[in-house]
């Protein structure tokens, strides 16, 4: 019987032939923790009777969720991370480096065919570059640091084939939201997704990462794609480590196979307060908004900033809206500066904040007020997510967010992309 991508990557790292359902111990190629999870991982690590970090060169800490620190109590947690990384010689990506997941890609820590854990649920993002990457908690992360290994249950896989061509003004985020709406918030729990088809190959890497990022919003353990020339091109010059892409066998066994055609897909919006509460933009057009966010590990990459900039170029953000732009990493911000995108945002009246998570998780940089509607390119719209349980979060593509910021109400972005 053939093997899925998950079975092959986990097997290669467990040193044997493995199948869905097996419980294995596998060697980790890389591990990442951020400022919401690393301090607790350090505490778990300190609870071990003895031991040191097994492979210091395979660990990265990122300070991105609450960065720069808005409070002394947060600074104290950041200090725990700086002390620990100093003691064991671990890589620290301090404030301004960017959202942990983009840093893991920019620095080529997550490679095709590799096994990566991150103490953050959106670690599944790197599935788009063919890494088996999954989120874990702080204690599992501490065990990973101590032993260099972790136990995994090899997941069953849902194969998703997406065909068709995206219309103008419709983006990969719309595909991702459509999938979450269809598969639902727990439709893929404990399972891996394998995504392929012409619509996936047509996307640039930035667009693919957006889709894998939302895999966990369907409960999935990983959101895998095969590596192609675009993937390899991204890593060229970034690493000397060997790159060993993994493909699924033609006769691999799948738990389920789903097919979609996105040729007629409209821009999608997830309404409060669940990510799978997805409707076409027409159904919510006109809903007043007070804040818009373009950024996050879902949509803070260069292609996203370009799409949003194209919409707001030469126009003005409505006076009733705070538009916040957060490039996903320092590398992306530098490119966005060089391309003039940052200037475009500033001229339009947007606020550009440092690379990082911005107001995605309610720690700082734009907590909404009671009763306000926010439209965001992020991946979660849970009640209270942005720091106020009395606010309402809508999720959409960067183009939809930008178009909405111009009008002060949720707007269909397609009019900005008609040729």
């Amino acid at each position, binding site marked *: 019987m053939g093997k899925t991508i998950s079975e092959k990557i986990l097997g290669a790292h467990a040193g044997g032939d493995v199948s869905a359902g097996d*419980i*294995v*111990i596998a060697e980790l190629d890389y591990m990442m923790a951020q*400022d*919401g*999870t690393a*301090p*607790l991982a350090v*505490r*778990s690590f300190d*609870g*071990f*009777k003895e031991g040191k970090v097994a492979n210091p060169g395979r660990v990265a800490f990122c300070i991105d*969720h*609450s960065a720069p620190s808005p*409070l002394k*109590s*947060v600074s104290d*947690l950041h200090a725990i991370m700086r002390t620990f990384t100093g003691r064991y010689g671990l890589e620290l990506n301090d404030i301004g480096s960017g959202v942990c997941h983009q840093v893991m890609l920019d620095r080529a820590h997550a490679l095709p065919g590799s096994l990566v854990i*991150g*103490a*953050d*649920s959106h*670690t599944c993002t790197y599935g788009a570059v063919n890494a088996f990457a999954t*989120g*874990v*908690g*702080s*204690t*599992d992360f*501490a*065990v990973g640091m*101590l*032993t260099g*290994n*972790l*136990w995994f*249950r090899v997941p069953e896989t849902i194969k998703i084939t997406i065909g068709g061509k995206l219309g103008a003004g419709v983006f990969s985020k719309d595909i991702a939201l459509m999938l979450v709406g269809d598969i639902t*918030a*727990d439709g893929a*729990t*404990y399972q891996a997704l394998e995504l392929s088809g012409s619509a996936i190959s047509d996307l640039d890497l930035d667009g693919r990462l957006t889709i894998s990022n939302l895999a966990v919003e369907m*409960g999935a*353990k990983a959101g895998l794609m095969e590596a192609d020339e675009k993937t390899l091109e991204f890593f060229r010059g970034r690493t000397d480590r060997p790159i060993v892409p993994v493909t699924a066998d033609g006769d691999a066994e799948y738990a389920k196979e789903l097919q979609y055609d996105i040729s007629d897909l409209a821009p999608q919006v997830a309404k409060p307060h*669940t990510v799978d509460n997805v409707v076409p933009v027409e159904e919510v057009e006109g809903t007043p908004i007070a804040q818009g966010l373009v950024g996050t590990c879902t949509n803070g990459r260069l292609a996203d900033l370009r799409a949003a900039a194209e919409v707001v170029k030469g126009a003005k953000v409505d006076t009733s809206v705070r538009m916040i732009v957060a490039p996903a990493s320092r590398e992306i911000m530098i490119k966005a500066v060089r391309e003039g995108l940052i200037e475009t945002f500033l001229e339009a009246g947007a606020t550009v904040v440092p690379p990082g998570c911005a107001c995605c*998780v*309610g*720690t700082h940089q734009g*907590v909404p007020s009671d009763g306000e509607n926010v439209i965001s390119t992020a991946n*979660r719209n*849970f*009640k*209270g*997510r942005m*720091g106020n*349980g009395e606010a309402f979060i809508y999720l959409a593509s960067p183009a939809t967010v930008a178009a909405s910021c111009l009008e002060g109400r949720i707007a269909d972005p397609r009019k900005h992309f008609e040729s």
Partner: protein
Amino acid sequence: MILKGKAHRFGDDVNTDYIISGRYKFKTLDMKELATHVMEDLDPGFYSRVEEGDFIVAGSNFGCGSSREQAPLAIKYAGVSAVISESFARIYFRNSINNGLPSIVCDSSGIEDGDELEVDLENGTIKDLTRGTEIETSPLPKVMLDILNEGGLVPFINKHGRLPVE
């Protein structure tokens, strides 16, 4: 081990932001302090009502969302002895067991808010004393039972000096 307490009923898709909001968890490692905010956005009075040994009873997909281990820890430090749900999100499930907080999978639909429950972890049964019913639970995988029996993953590794898979 037999656990006894009252049921506190919640619905489907209780996410980790509801269990403990990001606006608190980024500020402290003091789990007793975090516990005072547990479930706050969903049920503001929960922490003051819950008593030592009580149960959270939910529908499907409990603990979906982020990987924050503060979620099971806040529940545990609030005095809850186990969470009973139709299904759990993957990362939360691992995190709860790693911290010695049982996640019990069963058909929870017959349990109502305030019911007195008696949970037998070894035999995998729940007695609803208020309703006089008995519910079968799905057994945990052996690796997770082993971790739970040692009180969590860190104590397991300290005792056995290895990962919990032979």
